Protein backbone atom coordinates (compact mmCIF):
# COMPACT_ATOMS: atom_id res chain seq x y z
CA UNK A 1 0.00 0.00 0.00
CA UNK A 2 1.30 3.40 -0.94
CA UNK A 3 2.23 5.95 1.72
CA UNK A 4 -0.20 8.53 0.35
CA UNK A 5 -2.99 5.98 0.55
CA UNK A 6 -2.09 5.40 4.21
CA UNK A 7 -2.19 9.15 4.86
CA UNK A 8 -5.59 9.38 3.20
CA UNK A 9 -6.91 6.39 5.12
CA UNK A 10 -5.56 7.80 8.41
CA UNK A 11 -7.44 11.04 7.77
CA UNK A 12 -10.56 9.05 6.85
CA UNK A 13 -10.31 7.15 10.15
CA UNK A 14 -10.15 10.40 12.11
CA UNK A 15 -13.07 11.86 10.14
CA UNK A 16 -15.10 8.71 10.71
CA UNK A 17 -14.84 9.10 14.49
CA UNK A 18 -16.69 12.39 14.24
CA UNK A 19 -19.11 11.30 11.49
CA UNK A 20 -20.13 8.31 13.60
CA UNK A 21 -19.92 10.13 16.90
CA UNK A 22 -22.77 8.25 18.61
CA UNK A 23 -21.02 4.96 17.96
CA UNK A 24 -17.65 6.46 18.92
CA UNK A 25 -19.04 7.69 22.25
CA UNK A 26 -20.53 4.27 22.88
CA UNK A 27 -17.19 2.59 22.12
CA UNK A 28 -15.32 4.99 24.41
CA UNK A 29 -17.86 4.34 27.18
CA UNK A 30 -17.57 0.57 26.84
CA UNK A 31 -13.79 0.62 26.68
CA UNK A 32 -13.48 3.00 29.65
CA UNK A 33 -15.69 0.69 31.75
CA UNK A 34 -13.67 -2.37 30.79
CA UNK A 35 -10.36 -0.64 31.46
CA UNK A 36 -11.65 0.66 34.79
CA UNK A 37 -12.66 -2.83 35.88
CA UNK A 38 -9.35 -4.28 34.73
CA UNK A 39 -7.43 -1.43 36.40
CA UNK A 40 -9.35 -1.84 39.65
CA UNK A 41 -8.54 -5.57 39.61
CA UNK A 42 -4.85 -4.82 39.00
CA UNK A 43 -4.69 -2.25 41.82
CA UNK A 44 -6.54 -4.58 44.19
CA UNK A 45 -4.15 -7.41 43.41
CA UNK A 46 -1.13 -5.10 43.80
CA UNK A 47 -2.40 -3.94 47.19
CA UNK A 48 -2.97 -7.48 48.39
CA UNK A 49 0.53 -8.38 47.26
CA UNK A 50 2.04 -5.36 48.99
CA UNK A 51 0.11 -6.28 52.17
CA UNK A 52 1.40 -9.83 51.98
CA UNK A 53 4.96 -8.62 51.61
CA UNK A 54 4.56 -6.51 54.76
CA UNK A 55 3.17 -9.48 56.67
CA UNK A 56 5.96 -11.72 55.38
CA UNK A 57 8.56 -9.13 56.34
CA UNK A 58 7.24 -8.91 59.89
CA UNK A 59 7.42 -12.62 60.40
CA UNK A 60 10.85 -13.53 61.60
CA UNK A 61 12.26 -16.88 62.61
CA UNK A 62 14.30 -17.62 65.70
CA UNK A 63 17.53 -19.51 65.17
CA UNK A 64 18.88 -20.87 68.48
CA UNK A 65 22.60 -21.40 69.01
CA UNK A 66 24.00 -24.39 70.91
CA UNK A 67 24.15 -24.00 74.67
CA UNK A 68 27.42 -22.60 75.91
CA UNK A 69 28.61 -21.61 72.45
CA UNK A 70 31.29 -18.91 72.73
CA UNK A 71 30.05 -15.50 71.62
CA UNK A 72 32.70 -15.33 68.89
CA UNK A 73 31.40 -18.57 67.33
CA UNK A 74 27.84 -17.27 67.61
CA UNK A 75 28.84 -14.08 65.76
CA UNK A 76 30.57 -16.17 63.08
CA UNK A 77 27.43 -18.30 62.64
CA UNK A 78 25.46 -15.03 62.35
CA UNK A 79 27.75 -13.85 59.56
CA UNK A 80 27.16 -17.09 57.69
CA UNK A 81 23.39 -16.78 58.10
CA UNK A 82 23.53 -13.27 56.65
CA UNK A 83 25.41 -14.57 53.62
CA UNK A 84 22.50 -16.84 52.61
CA UNK A 85 20.59 -15.58 49.54
CA UNK A 86 17.12 -15.74 51.00
CA UNK A 87 17.94 -13.95 54.28
CA UNK A 88 16.57 -10.42 54.43
CA UNK A 89 17.78 -9.50 57.90
CA UNK A 90 19.56 -11.25 60.74
CA UNK A 91 19.54 -9.68 64.17
CA UNK A 92 21.50 -11.06 67.11
CA UNK A 93 19.48 -11.64 70.31
CA UNK A 94 21.91 -12.38 73.18
CA UNK A 95 20.63 -14.69 75.91
CA UNK A 96 20.65 -11.85 78.49
CA UNK A 97 18.33 -9.90 76.22
CA UNK A 98 16.13 -12.97 75.77
CA UNK A 99 15.71 -13.53 79.49
CA UNK A 100 14.83 -9.87 79.95
CA UNK A 101 12.14 -10.21 77.30
CA UNK A 102 10.77 -13.24 79.17
CA UNK A 103 10.74 -11.33 82.44
CA UNK A 104 8.83 -8.51 80.78
CA UNK A 105 6.38 -10.99 79.27
CA UNK A 106 5.75 -12.57 82.69
CA UNK A 107 5.40 -9.20 84.37
CA UNK A 108 8.49 -9.89 86.47
CA UNK A 109 9.86 -6.39 86.08
CA UNK A 110 12.13 -6.39 89.10
CA UNK A 111 13.49 -9.86 88.36
CA UNK A 112 12.50 -11.63 91.57
CA UNK A 113 10.79 -14.58 89.95
CA UNK A 114 13.57 -15.46 87.53
CA UNK A 115 16.35 -14.18 89.73
CA UNK A 116 18.25 -17.44 89.57
CA UNK A 117 18.24 -17.50 85.83
CA UNK A 118 20.27 -14.46 84.97
CA UNK A 119 23.96 -14.13 84.24
CA UNK A 120 25.85 -17.41 84.14
CA UNK A 121 22.80 -19.39 85.18
CA UNK A 122 20.74 -18.19 82.20
CA UNK A 123 19.27 -21.38 80.63
CA UNK A 124 18.39 -19.69 77.34
CA UNK A 125 20.71 -19.95 74.37
CA UNK A 126 21.90 -17.05 72.24
CA UNK A 127 19.67 -16.64 69.21
CA UNK A 128 19.24 -14.82 65.91
CA UNK A 129 16.04 -13.17 64.70
CA UNK A 130 16.08 -13.95 60.99
CA UNK A 131 13.60 -12.75 58.39
CA UNK A 132 13.36 -14.27 54.92
CA UNK A 133 13.02 -12.55 51.60
CA UNK A 134 10.83 -15.27 50.14
CA UNK A 135 8.78 -17.33 52.54
CA UNK A 136 8.06 -20.01 49.94
CA UNK A 137 11.77 -20.92 50.14
CA UNK A 138 11.43 -21.40 53.91
CA UNK A 139 12.27 -25.11 54.03
CA UNK A 140 15.36 -24.87 51.90
CA UNK A 141 16.75 -21.89 53.79
CA UNK A 142 15.97 -23.50 57.15
CA UNK A 143 17.98 -26.57 56.07
CA UNK A 144 20.90 -24.36 55.06
CA UNK A 145 20.82 -22.55 58.42
CA UNK A 146 20.71 -25.83 60.34
CA UNK A 147 23.92 -26.95 58.62
CA UNK A 148 25.85 -23.92 59.92
CA UNK A 149 28.07 -24.94 62.82
CA UNK A 150 26.92 -23.66 66.17
CA UNK A 151 23.24 -23.65 65.21
CA UNK A 152 21.14 -25.86 67.45
CA UNK A 153 17.51 -25.54 66.40
CA UNK A 154 15.29 -23.29 64.38
CA UNK A 155 11.70 -22.80 65.44
CA UNK A 156 9.28 -24.48 63.06
CA UNK A 157 7.52 -21.94 61.01
CA UNK A 158 6.74 -23.94 57.90
CA UNK A 159 3.00 -24.01 58.48
CA UNK A 160 2.55 -20.24 58.48
CA UNK A 161 5.05 -19.95 55.66
CA UNK A 162 3.03 -22.39 53.60
CA UNK A 163 -0.25 -20.64 54.32
CA UNK A 164 1.13 -17.24 53.40
CA UNK A 165 2.72 -18.59 50.24
CA UNK A 166 -0.53 -20.25 49.23
CA UNK A 167 -2.54 -17.10 49.84
CA UNK A 168 -0.02 -15.13 47.82
CA UNK A 169 -0.31 -17.61 44.98
CA UNK A 170 -4.11 -17.54 45.07
CA UNK A 171 -4.20 -13.74 44.93
CA UNK A 172 -1.71 -13.61 42.06
CA UNK A 173 -3.44 -16.36 40.08
CA UNK A 174 -6.95 -15.02 40.67
CA UNK A 175 -5.76 -11.51 39.78
CA UNK A 176 -4.21 -12.72 36.53
CA UNK A 177 -7.35 -14.64 35.58
CA UNK A 178 -9.60 -11.70 36.34
CA UNK A 179 -7.40 -9.43 34.23
CA UNK A 180 -7.28 -11.95 31.39
CA UNK A 181 -11.05 -12.45 31.50
CA UNK A 182 -11.77 -8.73 31.55
CA UNK A 183 -9.35 -8.21 28.66
CA UNK A 184 -11.17 -10.84 26.61
CA UNK A 185 -14.54 -9.30 27.48
CA UNK A 186 -13.23 -5.86 26.45
CA UNK A 187 -11.90 -7.23 23.18
CA UNK A 188 -15.20 -8.95 22.47
CA UNK A 189 -17.24 -5.83 23.21
CA UNK A 190 -14.94 -3.60 21.19
CA UNK A 191 -14.90 -5.88 18.17
CA UNK A 192 -18.68 -6.08 18.31
CA UNK A 193 -19.01 -2.31 18.60
CA UNK A 194 -16.80 -1.92 15.54
CA UNK A 195 -18.85 -4.59 13.78
CA UNK A 196 -22.00 -2.58 14.42
CA UNK A 197 -20.25 0.51 13.02
CA UNK A 198 -19.32 -1.54 10.02
CA UNK A 199 -22.85 -2.70 9.38
CA UNK A 200 -23.98 0.90 9.49
CA UNK A 201 -21.38 1.60 6.81
CA UNK A 202 -21.83 -1.52 4.73
CA UNK A 203 -22.99 0.50 1.73
CA UNK A 204 -19.76 2.48 1.83
CA UNK A 205 -17.74 -0.74 2.11
CA UNK A 206 -19.63 -2.35 -0.77
CA UNK A 207 -18.94 0.70 -2.94
CA UNK A 208 -15.26 0.48 -2.00
CA UNK A 209 -15.20 -3.20 -2.94
CA UNK A 210 -16.97 -2.62 -6.24
CA UNK A 211 -14.47 0.05 -7.23
CA UNK A 212 -11.60 -2.33 -6.46
CA UNK A 213 -10.52 -1.56 -2.90
CA UNK A 214 -8.35 -4.21 -1.30
CA UNK A 215 -9.33 -5.62 2.10
CA UNK A 216 -6.58 -3.53 3.71
CA UNK A 217 -7.94 -0.36 2.18
CA UNK A 218 -11.27 -1.07 3.86
CA UNK A 219 -9.59 -2.12 7.09
CA UNK A 220 -7.14 0.72 7.77
CA UNK A 221 -9.66 3.50 8.59
CA UNK A 222 -11.42 1.17 11.06
CA UNK A 223 -8.11 0.26 12.69
CA UNK A 224 -7.10 3.94 12.91
CA UNK A 225 -10.52 4.68 14.38
CA UNK A 226 -10.14 1.82 16.87
CA UNK A 227 -6.67 2.94 17.95
CA UNK A 228 -7.75 6.57 18.48
CA UNK A 229 -10.85 5.52 20.41
CA UNK A 230 -8.62 3.17 22.43
CA UNK A 231 -6.08 5.88 23.27
CA UNK A 232 -8.80 8.36 24.30
CA UNK A 233 -10.47 5.66 26.44
CA UNK A 234 -7.13 4.70 27.99
CA UNK A 235 -6.37 8.29 28.98
CA UNK A 236 -9.88 8.84 30.31
CA UNK A 237 -9.95 5.57 32.26
CA UNK A 238 -6.56 6.20 33.89
CA UNK A 239 -7.64 9.71 34.90
CA UNK A 240 -10.83 8.38 36.50
CA UNK A 241 -9.00 5.52 38.19
CA UNK A 242 -6.21 7.73 39.57
CA UNK A 243 -8.67 10.27 40.99
CA UNK A 244 -10.99 7.54 42.31
CA UNK A 245 -8.18 5.55 43.87
CA UNK A 246 -6.72 8.64 45.52
CA UNK A 247 -10.09 9.39 47.08
CA UNK A 248 -10.54 5.76 48.14
CA UNK A 249 -7.15 5.41 49.85
CA UNK A 250 -7.66 8.58 51.83
CA UNK A 251 -10.82 6.94 53.21
CA UNK A 252 -9.15 3.53 53.73
CA UNK A 253 -6.14 4.94 55.58
CA UNK A 254 -8.39 6.95 57.86
CA UNK A 255 -10.28 3.86 59.06
CA UNK A 256 -7.70 1.03 58.94
CA UNK A 257 -4.03 0.55 59.71
CA UNK A 258 -3.43 -0.92 56.26
CA UNK A 259 -1.21 1.26 54.08
CA UNK A 260 -2.29 1.02 50.44
CA UNK A 261 0.30 1.56 47.74
CA UNK A 262 0.40 5.25 46.82
CA UNK A 263 -1.04 6.05 43.38
CA UNK A 264 1.94 8.29 42.53
CA UNK A 265 4.19 5.23 42.41
CA UNK A 266 2.05 3.59 39.72
CA UNK A 267 0.31 6.51 37.99
CA UNK A 268 2.73 6.80 35.05
CA UNK A 269 2.92 3.05 34.45
CA UNK A 270 -0.85 2.76 34.82
CA UNK A 271 -1.55 5.57 32.33
CA UNK A 272 0.93 4.20 29.80
CA UNK A 273 -0.42 0.66 30.18
CA UNK A 274 -4.01 1.86 29.82
CA UNK A 275 -3.24 3.86 26.69
CA UNK A 276 -1.24 0.99 25.20
CA UNK A 277 -3.98 -1.51 26.14
CA UNK A 278 -6.66 0.80 24.71
CA UNK A 279 -4.75 1.18 21.46
CA UNK A 280 -4.11 -2.56 21.27
CA UNK A 281 -7.75 -3.43 22.01
CA UNK A 282 -8.90 -0.88 19.44
CA UNK A 283 -6.54 -2.15 16.75
CA UNK A 284 -7.20 -5.82 17.48
CA UNK A 285 -10.96 -5.22 17.71
CA UNK A 286 -10.81 -3.47 14.33
CA UNK A 287 -8.72 -6.15 12.66
CA UNK A 288 -10.74 -9.06 14.06
CA UNK A 289 -14.20 -7.68 13.34
CA UNK A 290 -13.34 -6.42 9.86
CA UNK A 291 -11.61 -9.67 9.02
CA UNK A 292 -14.75 -11.60 9.93
CA UNK A 293 -17.01 -9.12 8.15
CA UNK A 294 -15.01 -9.08 4.93
CA UNK A 295 -14.72 -12.85 4.92
CA UNK A 296 -18.46 -13.35 5.29
CA UNK A 297 -20.94 -10.75 4.13
CA UNK A 298 -18.64 -7.79 3.36
CA UNK A 299 -17.10 -9.31 0.25
CA UNK A 300 -20.39 -8.93 -1.60
CA UNK A 301 -21.60 -5.93 -3.43
CA UNK A 302 -24.77 -5.33 -1.44
CA UNK A 303 -28.07 -5.68 -3.25
CA UNK A 304 -26.97 -7.61 -6.29
Amino acid at each position, binding site marked *: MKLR*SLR*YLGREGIKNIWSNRTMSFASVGVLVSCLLMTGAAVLFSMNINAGMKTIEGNNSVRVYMKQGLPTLSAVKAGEEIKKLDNVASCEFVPKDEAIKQYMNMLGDKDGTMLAGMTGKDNPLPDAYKVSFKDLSQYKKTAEQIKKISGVDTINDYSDIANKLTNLDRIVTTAGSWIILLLSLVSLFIISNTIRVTMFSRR*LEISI*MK*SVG*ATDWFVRVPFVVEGVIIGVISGALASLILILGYDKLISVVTSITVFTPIPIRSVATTLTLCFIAAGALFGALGGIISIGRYLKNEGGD*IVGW
Partner: protein
Amino acid sequence: MIEFQNVSKVYSNGTKALRNVSLKVDKGEFVFIVGSSGAGKSTFLKLIMCEERPSEGEIVINDMCLSRLKRRDVPFYRRTMGIVFQDFRLIDNMTVFDNVAFAMHIVGASQREIRKRVPYILGLVNLQDKQSCRPTELSGGEQQRVGLARALVNNPKLIVADEPTGNVDPALSFEIVDLLSEINRRGTTILMVTHEHTLVKHFQKRVVEIHDGEVVADSAAQEVPHEA
Protein backbone atom coordinates in the same frame (compact mmCIF):
# COMPACT_ATOMS: atom_id res chain seq x y z
CA MET B 1 -12.81 -8.11 -24.42
CA ILE B 2 -15.51 -10.28 -22.80
CA GLU B 3 -15.90 -13.92 -23.61
CA PHE B 4 -18.28 -16.39 -21.99
CA GLN B 5 -17.59 -19.97 -23.06
CA ASN B 6 -20.40 -22.40 -22.18
CA VAL B 7 -20.87 -20.78 -18.79
CA SER B 8 -23.35 -22.24 -16.31
CA LYS B 9 -24.00 -21.11 -12.80
CA VAL B 10 -25.79 -23.22 -10.23
CA TYR B 11 -26.13 -21.76 -6.72
CA SER B 12 -25.66 -23.91 -3.63
CA ASN B 13 -29.45 -23.98 -3.13
CA GLY B 14 -29.83 -25.64 -6.52
CA THR B 15 -31.03 -22.60 -8.49
CA LYS B 16 -29.78 -22.77 -12.06
CA ALA B 17 -29.20 -19.10 -12.80
CA LEU B 18 -27.31 -19.42 -16.08
CA ARG B 19 -27.25 -22.32 -18.52
CA ASN B 20 -24.56 -22.86 -21.06
CA VAL B 21 -24.14 -19.19 -21.96
CA SER B 22 -21.67 -18.37 -24.73
CA LEU B 23 -21.18 -14.74 -25.62
CA LYS B 24 -18.49 -12.56 -27.07
CA VAL B 25 -18.31 -8.79 -26.71
CA ASP B 26 -15.57 -7.00 -28.62
CA LYS B 27 -13.59 -4.03 -27.47
CA GLY B 28 -15.47 -0.77 -28.04
CA GLU B 29 -18.93 -2.34 -28.30
CA PHE B 30 -22.08 -1.04 -26.63
CA VAL B 31 -24.33 -3.90 -25.55
CA PHE B 32 -27.76 -3.80 -23.94
CA ILE B 33 -28.55 -6.82 -21.79
CA VAL B 34 -32.29 -7.26 -21.50
CA GLY B 35 -34.54 -9.77 -19.82
CA SER B 36 -37.28 -10.05 -17.24
CA SER B 37 -36.61 -10.21 -13.50
CA GLY B 38 -35.04 -13.49 -12.47
CA ALA B 39 -33.82 -14.16 -15.98
CA GLY B 40 -30.18 -14.30 -14.85
CA LYS B 41 -29.05 -10.72 -15.56
CA SER B 42 -27.78 -10.19 -12.00
CA THR B 43 -25.84 -13.45 -12.07
CA PHE B 44 -24.39 -12.41 -15.40
CA LEU B 45 -23.12 -9.15 -13.85
CA LYS B 46 -21.90 -10.91 -10.69
CA LEU B 47 -19.84 -13.25 -12.82
CA ILE B 48 -18.35 -10.32 -14.71
CA MET B 49 -17.51 -8.55 -11.43
CA CYS B 50 -16.01 -11.79 -10.15
CA GLU B 51 -18.33 -11.75 -7.19
CA GLU B 52 -19.44 -15.24 -8.16
CA ARG B 53 -17.48 -17.92 -9.97
CA PRO B 54 -19.02 -20.01 -12.77
CA SER B 55 -19.98 -23.62 -11.97
CA GLU B 56 -18.97 -24.61 -15.46
CA GLY B 57 -17.31 -22.97 -18.43
CA GLU B 58 -14.76 -20.20 -18.77
CA ILE B 59 -15.00 -16.41 -18.62
CA VAL B 60 -12.20 -14.37 -20.14
CA ILE B 61 -12.29 -10.60 -19.62
CA ASN B 62 -9.48 -8.24 -20.62
CA ASP B 63 -7.34 -11.31 -21.32
CA MET B 64 -7.83 -12.52 -17.76
CA CYS B 65 -9.31 -15.92 -17.11
CA LEU B 66 -11.66 -15.31 -14.17
CA SER B 67 -11.80 -18.89 -12.92
CA ARG B 68 -8.06 -18.75 -12.31
CA LEU B 69 -8.12 -15.32 -10.66
CA LYS B 70 -7.02 -15.48 -7.00
CA ARG B 71 -9.20 -13.84 -4.35
CA ARG B 72 -6.50 -11.29 -3.54
CA ASP B 73 -6.25 -10.27 -7.21
CA VAL B 74 -9.98 -9.57 -7.56
CA PRO B 75 -9.71 -5.90 -6.39
CA PHE B 76 -7.04 -5.23 -9.01
CA TYR B 77 -9.16 -6.87 -11.67
CA ARG B 78 -12.16 -4.72 -10.70
CA ARG B 79 -10.08 -1.59 -11.17
CA THR B 80 -10.05 -2.31 -14.90
CA MET B 81 -13.79 -1.62 -15.03
CA GLY B 82 -16.25 0.99 -13.86
CA ILE B 83 -19.60 0.11 -12.40
CA VAL B 84 -22.81 2.12 -12.36
CA PHE B 85 -25.65 1.09 -10.02
CA GLN B 86 -29.36 1.53 -10.35
CA ASP B 87 -29.54 3.13 -6.88
CA PHE B 88 -26.44 5.33 -7.52
CA ARG B 89 -24.57 4.14 -4.38
CA LEU B 90 -23.20 7.54 -3.49
CA ILE B 91 -21.91 8.29 0.00
CA ASP B 92 -24.24 10.89 1.49
CA ASN B 93 -21.77 12.54 3.85
CA MET B 94 -19.27 13.18 1.07
CA THR B 95 -19.42 15.96 -1.49
CA VAL B 96 -19.79 15.22 -5.19
CA PHE B 97 -16.06 15.86 -5.62
CA ASP B 98 -15.16 13.47 -2.80
CA ASN B 99 -17.50 10.77 -4.07
CA VAL B 100 -15.62 10.77 -7.35
CA ALA B 101 -12.17 11.30 -5.78
CA PHE B 102 -12.85 8.33 -3.49
CA ALA B 103 -12.50 5.92 -6.43
CA MET B 104 -9.13 7.50 -7.28
CA HIS B 105 -7.91 7.22 -3.68
CA ILE B 106 -8.64 3.50 -3.83
CA VAL B 107 -6.24 3.03 -6.72
CA GLY B 108 -3.61 5.11 -4.91
CA ALA B 109 -3.74 8.26 -7.07
CA SER B 110 -1.87 11.35 -5.85
CA GLN B 111 -3.61 14.51 -4.65
CA ARG B 112 -2.33 16.33 -7.72
CA GLU B 113 -3.77 13.77 -10.10
CA ILE B 114 -7.06 13.83 -8.20
CA ARG B 115 -7.31 17.63 -8.27
CA LYS B 116 -6.72 17.58 -12.00
CA ARG B 117 -8.81 14.60 -13.06
CA VAL B 118 -11.97 14.90 -10.93
CA PRO B 119 -13.03 18.36 -12.23
CA TYR B 120 -12.33 17.17 -15.78
CA ILE B 121 -14.58 14.12 -15.37
CA LEU B 122 -17.28 16.18 -13.62
CA GLY B 123 -17.11 18.53 -16.61
CA LEU B 124 -17.72 15.57 -18.94
CA VAL B 125 -20.95 14.71 -17.11
CA ASN B 126 -21.92 18.39 -16.86
CA LEU B 127 -21.64 18.68 -13.10
CA GLN B 128 -18.70 21.05 -12.79
CA ASP B 129 -20.87 23.51 -10.83
CA LYS B 130 -22.05 20.93 -8.32
CA GLN B 131 -18.66 19.77 -7.04
CA SER B 132 -19.23 20.80 -3.45
CA CYS B 133 -22.86 19.69 -3.21
CA ARG B 134 -23.93 16.65 -1.23
CA PRO B 135 -25.67 13.86 -3.17
CA THR B 136 -28.92 14.57 -1.29
CA GLU B 137 -29.01 18.06 -2.81
CA LEU B 138 -29.04 16.64 -6.35
CA SER B 139 -31.81 15.27 -8.57
CA GLY B 140 -31.90 11.57 -9.49
CA GLY B 141 -30.42 12.28 -12.91
CA GLU B 142 -27.62 14.34 -11.41
CA GLN B 143 -26.87 11.67 -8.83
CA GLN B 144 -26.59 9.07 -11.55
CA ARG B 145 -24.21 11.34 -13.44
CA VAL B 146 -22.04 11.46 -10.30
CA GLY B 147 -22.17 7.65 -10.27
CA LEU B 148 -21.12 7.67 -13.90
CA ALA B 149 -18.28 10.09 -13.18
CA ARG B 150 -17.06 7.79 -10.38
CA ALA B 151 -17.15 4.80 -12.73
CA LEU B 152 -15.25 6.77 -15.38
CA VAL B 153 -12.64 8.49 -13.30
CA ASN B 154 -10.07 5.69 -13.32
CA ASN B 155 -10.30 5.44 -17.10
CA PRO B 156 -11.65 1.88 -17.25
CA LYS B 157 -11.70 -0.22 -20.39
CA LEU B 158 -15.17 -1.50 -19.56
CA ILE B 159 -18.22 0.09 -17.94
CA VAL B 160 -20.87 -2.15 -16.46
CA ALA B 161 -24.14 -0.33 -15.86
CA ASP B 162 -26.86 -2.11 -13.91
CA GLU B 163 -30.16 -0.47 -14.88
CA PRO B 164 -28.62 3.00 -14.62
CA THR B 165 -31.88 4.65 -15.65
CA GLY B 166 -34.10 2.68 -13.27
CA ASN B 167 -34.35 5.46 -10.71
CA VAL B 168 -34.20 8.40 -13.07
CA ASP B 169 -37.01 10.38 -14.75
CA PRO B 170 -37.81 8.87 -18.18
CA ALA B 171 -36.84 12.11 -19.87
CA LEU B 172 -33.45 12.07 -18.19
CA SER B 173 -32.89 8.40 -19.01
CA PHE B 174 -32.02 9.33 -22.57
CA GLU B 175 -29.52 11.84 -21.27
CA ILE B 176 -27.76 9.12 -19.24
CA VAL B 177 -27.60 6.73 -22.18
CA ASP B 178 -26.45 9.59 -24.41
CA LEU B 179 -23.59 10.10 -22.01
CA LEU B 180 -22.77 6.39 -22.04
CA SER B 181 -22.84 6.47 -25.85
CA GLU B 182 -20.44 9.41 -25.83
CA ILE B 183 -18.12 7.48 -23.51
CA ASN B 184 -18.44 4.50 -25.83
CA ARG B 185 -17.47 6.65 -28.82
CA ARG B 186 -14.23 7.43 -26.99
CA GLY B 187 -13.38 3.73 -26.95
CA THR B 188 -14.79 2.33 -23.71
CA THR B 189 -16.78 -0.89 -23.91
CA ILE B 190 -20.25 -0.54 -22.36
CA LEU B 191 -22.43 -3.28 -20.98
CA MET B 192 -25.80 -1.95 -19.88
CA VAL B 193 -28.50 -4.00 -18.23
CA THR B 194 -31.96 -2.52 -18.72
CA HIS B 195 -35.57 -3.43 -19.20
CA GLU B 196 -36.63 -0.13 -20.74
CA HIS B 197 -37.54 -1.11 -24.27
CA THR B 198 -37.92 2.46 -25.44
CA LEU B 199 -34.26 3.09 -24.68
CA VAL B 200 -33.16 -0.10 -26.40
CA LYS B 201 -35.21 0.71 -29.46
CA HIS B 202 -34.06 4.31 -29.58
CA PHE B 203 -30.32 3.73 -29.33
CA GLN B 204 -29.96 0.93 -31.89
CA LYS B 205 -27.16 -0.97 -30.24
CA ARG B 206 -26.46 -4.65 -29.94
CA VAL B 207 -29.08 -6.30 -27.73
CA VAL B 208 -28.56 -9.54 -25.85
CA GLU B 209 -31.67 -11.02 -24.35
CA ILE B 210 -31.42 -13.41 -21.44
CA HIS B 211 -34.39 -15.54 -20.55
CA ASP B 212 -34.48 -18.27 -17.92
CA GLY B 213 -30.69 -18.37 -17.71
CA GLU B 214 -30.10 -18.66 -21.43
CA VAL B 215 -29.23 -16.21 -24.18
CA VAL B 216 -32.35 -16.32 -26.34
CA ALA B 217 -31.55 -13.47 -28.70
CA ASP B 218 -28.42 -11.61 -29.70
CA SER B 219 -28.77 -8.93 -32.34
CA ALA B 220 -26.09 -6.87 -33.93
CA ALA B 221 -26.89 -3.15 -34.10
CA GLN B 222 -29.82 -2.66 -36.43
CA GLU B 223 -32.32 -0.04 -37.32
CA VAL B 224 -35.37 -0.29 -35.09
CA PRO B 225 -38.35 2.00 -35.69
CA HIS B 226 -38.42 4.79 -33.10
CA GLU B 227 -41.63 4.60 -31.09
CA ALA B 228 -41.41 7.60 -28.79
